[in-house]
């Protein structure tokens, strides 16, 4: 119990951040029309591609001699890039058609 309280206390800013972000996430898409469900899901999909930043950090911290880690890290970067680039491009293609509305 003491551990938990200590952990929360030490990371209190993080916890605030977490709680507020959750509300922001819900509020921000509050009244989305059903027409936009698919593009919105796809857009959100692209945004969590920010995981690529993590894979880059892994790479930056890897020793150049550690081939296995470098290979796996590179794969992670490729996967993250796929998520980001594919996600944004697919979303853009879906939304292209919404602009033609006169």
């Amino acid at each position, binding site marked *: 119990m003491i551990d938990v309280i200590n*952990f929360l206390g030490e990371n209190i800013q993080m916890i605030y*951040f*977490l709680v507020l*972000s*959750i*509300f*922001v*996430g*819900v509020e*921000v*898409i*509050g*009244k*989305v029309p*059903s*027409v*936009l*469900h*698919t*593009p*919105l*899901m796809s*857009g*959100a*999909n*692209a*945004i*969590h*591609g*920010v*995981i*690529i*930043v*993590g894979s*880059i950090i*892994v*790479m930056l911290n890897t020793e150049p001699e550690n081939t296995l880690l*470098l290979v796996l*890290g*590179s*794969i992670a*970067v*490729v*996967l*993250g*890039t*796929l*998520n*980001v*680039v*594919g*996600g*944004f*491009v*697919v979303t853009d293609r879906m*939304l292209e*058609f*919404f602009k*033609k*509305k006169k």
Partner: protein
Amino acid sequence: MNKKHILDIIYLIASVTFVIGLKMLSNPQSARKGNLFAAAGMFFAIIGTIIIKHGTVAPIIYYLICGSIFIGTVIGWVAAKKVKMTAMPEMVSLFNGMGGACAALISLLEFQHYVGVTHKIIIILLGMVIGSISFSGSIIAFLKLNGTMKKSFRLPKYNIINTVLLIFLLGFISYTSFANQQPLCLYLLFASALVYGILFVVPIGGADMPVVISLLNSFTGLATAFGGFLYNNQVMLTGGILVGSAGTFLTIVMCHAMNRTLTNVLFGGFSEEGTSATSSAKGSIKDISVTDAAVLMNYSKTVVIVPGYGLAVAQAQHVMHELEQLLESRGVEVKYAIHPVAGRMPGHMNVLLAESNVDYEKLLEMDDINSDFPNTDVVLVVGANDVVNPAAKNDSSSPIYGMPILDVELARHIIVNKRSMNVGYAGIDNELFYNPKTSMLFGDAKGVLTKLVSELKTM
């Protein structure tokens, strides 16, 4: 001036673009700009992370990072550009799986660096498990949507097996974190999480895949947030939590649009019990020739078209538009009735029809058009099935009971174009086809519509 601060500011800007981007994405007018806005923020976050580093990094690592990003960009770009609009949903699922796999890999690699630091290990394991579930689950969803995996086979008592496996996963995470921080445990957890992802999605019917993808999407968001916790990285945290919460909310909204609850989708699913009751609804069906169908529509005042996935698969949306214009030129009022889940995902059909230049004013959502059906002369159902199945209203034993549907049976005539009498995605029979007012026009949507158009031109 501290370089770290510059990076922090870049991350702050990127986080703001994510929030604003999501906000703009939920409005049709600004959606496209919102997407580009978030993409720009992402670009700076990535560039910033690469350039602004602490300490020295060997050049080889930079080459590898840039090379990997290049490869990923080319593949992702080409795949996203080449994919047909009809295959969009499974593409999203696939990209989501890539993100999940990335998160899992990061955790696998970082584990060894944090052995002994229990709270970091918990974060790493949670990130890995959620990322892996998202990865294997998304791949299954992808296979189901593109038709490779057609049957939703179930292990006996699959709900119990899944629950036990989930409890095992949670227990094993605690065991590994607090008692035994061995790589072997890590790999075991990794494998179990992959298996769980598969077992989690496999029993769920294809019609519910959009909900599942949306849920897995928020899972990946969560895994990303754990990555952010691990590195104390603000942009990963914001991006991850935003998608995690917005994705969960969107999942619930989607369920709501189908009048289902999330637990019903995930654990109840379409039960097999209803099928025996509905199959008794047989009667005789009536065929109609293309010529008769053309005459019928030509001399009607109002025609409502109900497009479904069959239309999309046959790539018939352009011919559909041609038919609509031809009828309009003859003074027939033509409208489209779009069910919220027409196609494979909410909004999917709107995108497809917009692609073939159908006027937006003609696309009516379910709630707006349902009151018009009693005054409609002809309803033309093209490749749709479950969304016009009256069993959703009449038959409480039906698996789709309670789903809001288009009340096409209220119209004077109903013409249903289908390839065959096969059942729809929910795997159940449709009593609409046996309605005396209904005529069946069998054939591939594109072929039939093309014939209708040429027939109409001769009139």
